[in-house]
């Protein structure tokens, strides 16, 4: 069984091993023992609530209970941009209109902004390649929403997730070539490496500060504004199903979209329900016929754990197997939080 749980100090080596497999494109998970060690320490302090709420970084690992292997990682930062400025481009609209000449021109505009400062961020999701099957990816990504539903007071109302932007087959970012390169005069990968070590804000000093018309950019750069990297399409879809939307903020380098959601409108917050764990009867789940899988988490901040179960909450109760109860660190009579794995369509 796979369980997603709060990271612990002893997971550092496994985390490092995973970081070596990530490759470029994810700036928050680099194989750097110092950086990762600091981050795990902050994560442990976050779950233990020994640091201020806005400094917290809740990191989760997915563990295979059979072989004890760490197969995935993901995180929620309580607030971005409070130590180093957090930059994005925001896409706005400007209308240039002359009644005399009968011209009405609607232009998209890029504004360099720190608007998302203070938002909570979903980040650092990585699943080991040999575990990329079945519902594992969903479990890993969605565990965070269940955590947020259980502990909404730990987060700001605004939740964001930065998505990797479009690159062509050669790893070339048309947006960077059309914009950033003129101001940085260095390769995209060098920029990427600098952002990885926390220098993003200093690069942003070199970005033009005045609003830019998108129409000034080459066609191929315009086309990829708000487009994700091909490999990120499924991850984007998952988040959108949970109530995150592209609202016009993009990465300043590759124009990858930032998905945003209001915590109160996340599917998990709207639809997840608490349930009391029934004593294990062995039978109910043994014969459950094609039930929709359900995300189930305990309600314990310090030792948060979540699994995917075939059981469903009915009338405030849920029937979990002994193994599942163990994975969640709970027993009959305890309260758990449940959410169907997949969103249902509205009945309209």
């Amino acid at each position, binding site marked *: 069984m796979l369980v997603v749980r709060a990271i612990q100090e002893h997971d550092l080596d496994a985390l490092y091993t995973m970081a070596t497999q990530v490759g470029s494109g994810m700036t928050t998970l680099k194989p750097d023992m110092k950086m990762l060690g600091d981050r795990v320490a902050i994560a442990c302090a976050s779950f233990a609530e020994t640091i201020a709420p806005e400094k917290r970084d809740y990191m989760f690992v997915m563990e295979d209970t059979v072989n004890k292997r760490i197969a995935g990682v993901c995180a929620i930062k309580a607030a971005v941009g409070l130590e180093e400025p957090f930059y994005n481009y925001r896409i706005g609209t400007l209308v240039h209109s*002359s009644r005399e000449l009968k*011209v009405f*021109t609607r232009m998209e505009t890029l504004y360099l902004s720190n608007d998302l400062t203070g938002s909570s961020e979903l980040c650092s999701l990585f699943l080991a390649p040999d575990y990329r099957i079945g519902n594992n990816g969903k479990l890993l990504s969605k565990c965070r929403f269940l955590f947020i539903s259980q502990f909404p007071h730990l987060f700001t109302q605004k939740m964001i997730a930065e998505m990797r932007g479009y690159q062509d087959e050669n790893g070339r970012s048309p947006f960077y070539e059309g914009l950033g390169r003129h101001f940085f005069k260095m390769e995209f990968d060098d920029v990427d490496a*600098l952002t990885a070590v926390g220098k993003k804000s200093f690069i942003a*000093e070199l970005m033009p500060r*005045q609003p830019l*018309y998108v129409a000034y950019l080459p066609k191929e750069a315009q086309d990829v504004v708000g487009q994700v990297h091909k490999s990120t399409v499924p991850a984007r879809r998952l988040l959108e199903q949970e109530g995150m939307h592209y609202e016009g903020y993009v990465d300043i380098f590759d124009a990858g979209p930032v998905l945003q959601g209001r915590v109160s409108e996340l599917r998990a917050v709207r639809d997840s329900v608490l349930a009391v764990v029934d004593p294990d009867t062995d039978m109910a789940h043994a014969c459950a016929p094609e039930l929709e899988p359900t995300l189930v988490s305990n309600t314990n901040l310090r030792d948060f754990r979540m699994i995917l179960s075939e059981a469903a909450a009915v009338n405030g109760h849920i029937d979990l197997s002994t193994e599942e109860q163990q994975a969640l660190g709970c027993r009959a009579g305890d309260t758990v939080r449940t959410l169907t794995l997949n969103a249902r369509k509205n009945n309209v």
Partner: protein
Amino acid sequence: MYVVRPVELADIAALEKLAAVSMPGVHTLPKTREKIVQAVEASIASFGAQVDIPSEESYLFVLEALAGHSLVGTAAIHASAGSNGTYFSFRNDVIQQVSRDLGISHSIHALTLCSELTSYSQLSSFYVDERVQSRPEAALLSRARLMFAALAPQRFSDRFFVPLAGVTDDNGGSPFWDALGRKFFQMDFLDAERTIGGARNRTSIVELMPHYPVYVPLLPGEAQAVMGQIHPSGELAFGLLTAEGFEADDYIDIFDGGPILQAHKHALRTMTQSMRCTATLYRPSRAGEPVVQYAVAANAGQQFRAVIVSVPSIEGGISIALPQEVLDVLQVAEGDDVLCVRI
């Protein structure tokens, strides 16, 4: 001999002929009879006006070949570019980009829509017939406007500018326009110029053109290449104006990216080096006396005249000896003041 003088009603027919042959473009002559008549009448009213503060006056000069009484050139000066609206141009700005951490510091060139030229006096409509282009009278025509301004400073601003036509291709397209104005106006360059009547002071400009700086590195190469470059038809004017002291680096045209030359009057040779001398009658004293060429002008109204003369140097002197014929053309008598500058 050639004389530069204010345009007169009798010149209208000749101006129509000139307009028919002169370059297609926006900074030259009006094209239709109606507009020519308007321009001539406005000029006559301007020369006749009592002026305290430069305003709507527009002074049109012609270069006349006295032999044959033919018009071979035109040049104009407007008292205030913004008398009828705000005159818009792009200012060449340099933005410093600094990142201490990365040790990077560089400059970015940006174009900012600005209205700074609004209060300047504007030179325009410079045209000389092919036969005169290589003669000093081309320079006389160009400078006569400034000599007039030196004689009647209250009629003009302390600062002057001249927009010169930018680069266009064989089809009348402008690479600069295609990269910038077209995106906002949604029309071809020549259509836009026609629609707006070649003006740079229309409300439509503030409605449609970008209000935020345009970062030059983002413009296509072809557009960058023509920024501040002149149309071949403007080379003569460009040479004359830079020799005069005009500078080309600060502003460009918002439509075609052509250069806008500008200067404070203190930087203009005609202003700083011209001398007011008393005219005397020239009586050739000895043969072979070395002579130099001067532009000489007189009168600050509709009687304004300017000619070129070759006479002995007047450096340090206070009078200039002019042949009777020149006195006649200038409409001055011995003892009258004239303005002289080396040409």
